[in-house]
């Protein structure tokens, strides 16, 4: 029986370790890659090496950054340091940023609470969050964890941690949670009951 050359088999095996890539997809990717020009392959390898060597977490917020420097948001003078948007992962911050209307800063927790799966409070970047709130004179924390059970529990846990903190000047720190409701462009009759229920609860004045 004709087997695959060992070098190719090794490449396929390496690719299957990536998330979302099964054996079939890995085969297709590997076969495409070996047809690339050597220069293209070298530049892919370079990009890979660079990313691994240079991409770091922003020392302040935990967003994706480069060479240990502050991320663009933290480095920017124009961002409002008194508002913090707390998200589970760096990609969530990227998603909020794509929305284009948020002008505050971010804080990445690095996951969501789930004692069942072994994720405990100590595994989240909560101490850093508390420190930042005091140091930066934060007046509002927007909790933008996922609308999943774990995300909700994380929000409730953060509430426990933050509820007694005060903003500069002694006023209570404003704690908010992202609204839940209909996605833009959605048709009402296609919405699931839980979404509709939540949209009704969080309805706004016209």
């Amino acid at each position, binding site marked *: 029986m004709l087997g695959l050359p060992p070098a190719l088999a090794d490449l396929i095996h390496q690719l299957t370790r990536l998330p979302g890539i099964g054996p079939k997809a890995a085969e297709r990717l590997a076969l495409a890659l070996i047809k690339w020009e050597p220069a293209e392959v070298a530049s892919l390898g370079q990009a890979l090496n660079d990313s691994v060597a240079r991409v770091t977490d922003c020392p302040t917020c935990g967003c994706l950054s480069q060479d240990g420097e502050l991320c663009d948001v933290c480095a920017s003078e124009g961002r409002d340091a008194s508002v913090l948007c707390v998200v589970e992962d760096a990609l969530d911050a990227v998603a909020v940023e794509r929305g284009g209307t948020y002008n505050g800063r971010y804080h990445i927790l690095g996951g969501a609470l789930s004692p069942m799966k072994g994720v405990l*409070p100590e595994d989240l970047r*909560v101490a850093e969050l508390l420190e930042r709130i005091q140091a930066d004179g934060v007046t509002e924390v927007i909790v933008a964890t996922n609308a999943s059970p774990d995300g909700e529990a994380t929000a409730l846990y953060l509430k426990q941690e933050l509820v007694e903190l005060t903003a500069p000047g002694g006023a209570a720190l404003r704690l908010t949670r992202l609204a839940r409701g209909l996605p833009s462009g959605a048709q009402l009759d296609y919405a699931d009951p839980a979404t509709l229920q939540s949209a009704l609860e969080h309805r706004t004045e016209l």
Partner: protein
Amino acid sequence: MRLKRLKLRDFRNYERLDLEFPAGIIVLAGANGAGKSNLLEAIHYLSYLKSFRTNRDREVVRYSCPLALIEARLADDDERPFDARLVLKSGKRHVRLNGNDITRFQDFIGRLHSQFFFPGDLTLLTGDPTLRREVLDLELLRLKPVLLPVYQKFRNALKQRNSVLKLLYPQPGRRHNRPVDLLKALEAYTEQLIGAGVAIMRERRGITKVLNEQFVPLYARLAPPEGESVSLRYLSAVPLEPDDQLAANYRRLLSESQETEASLRFTTVGPHRDDLGFILDGERDLKRYGSQGQQRSAALTFRLALAALSRQRLSDDPLLLLDDALSEMDDERKQRLLAICRQHRQVFITSASQREVDLISPLATVVYTVEDGLLAPAGSGQ
């Protein structure tokens, strides 16, 4: 809901059965062991994907046969037909609905809505509270499918909270480690538990109330003439009244049970520990103080109350499967039960007594004599 056509292959003692069933009361008469209950068991399988007698599919496959087949043409209350097909092998099931393979069994269970009574159904009353909570929740979700996420939320919060308790209170002998942030996480899950738990307790209390309205008069008509009344009550460690204090009461009980939680390391108060009570004369537990006759009547009445509620609230009249339900009743109560059955679209009644069959026959659409896995029409009453 009704069963129009049934096909069995190698199911229990039915090698081959192909029959059409009319609406109304269908009597299955025959000696013990003839296969009357087996037929009801097949219909029960189509409804709940399980037997009421065994947990092992292998047992229902006819001796030395590779597989059993149950196939049915059903019709809902608007006479819309649908087909259900079930193949049972040892350790394997193959389920089809309208010709489509079903991989998620929950998409199949309950499509054929039925309520059943069989002599062993007494365990519903005398057995573990889990059984009663399951029945109550199943009916609640049928009436209000939007509650499913609430149940999922509760189960998740409960599991997570229990995980935190296990971390907070390690086994004796191990070092106690009680960081402040774990206590705060516990508090977060307590909030989630209360939010979903209160909703579940409210809904269960509500459905118990409307079920009770069906149950009490039915029980009075069907129970042994001893004069006692039986009612349904939702039993919770959490005081359910006044309603606006429910969340506060649950929170108080959870905080009072801290010591118990520390030693048992799981959540000991909430809807997951509640029960549906069958209460004799407004005070005593039927499970403990009722006679077997009373318990039997209560179990039967409970199923009939569920059917009546479904018909009233959802205009969904479930199929009734009554296995040997009349044998311990006097003639007057038999007549009353039959009068109730006549109000339902389709009812299967088994009986091993000729006298009983003679009593039912005038009210029945058709009477079958069951013998050795064969059904023969014994004539119809009307």
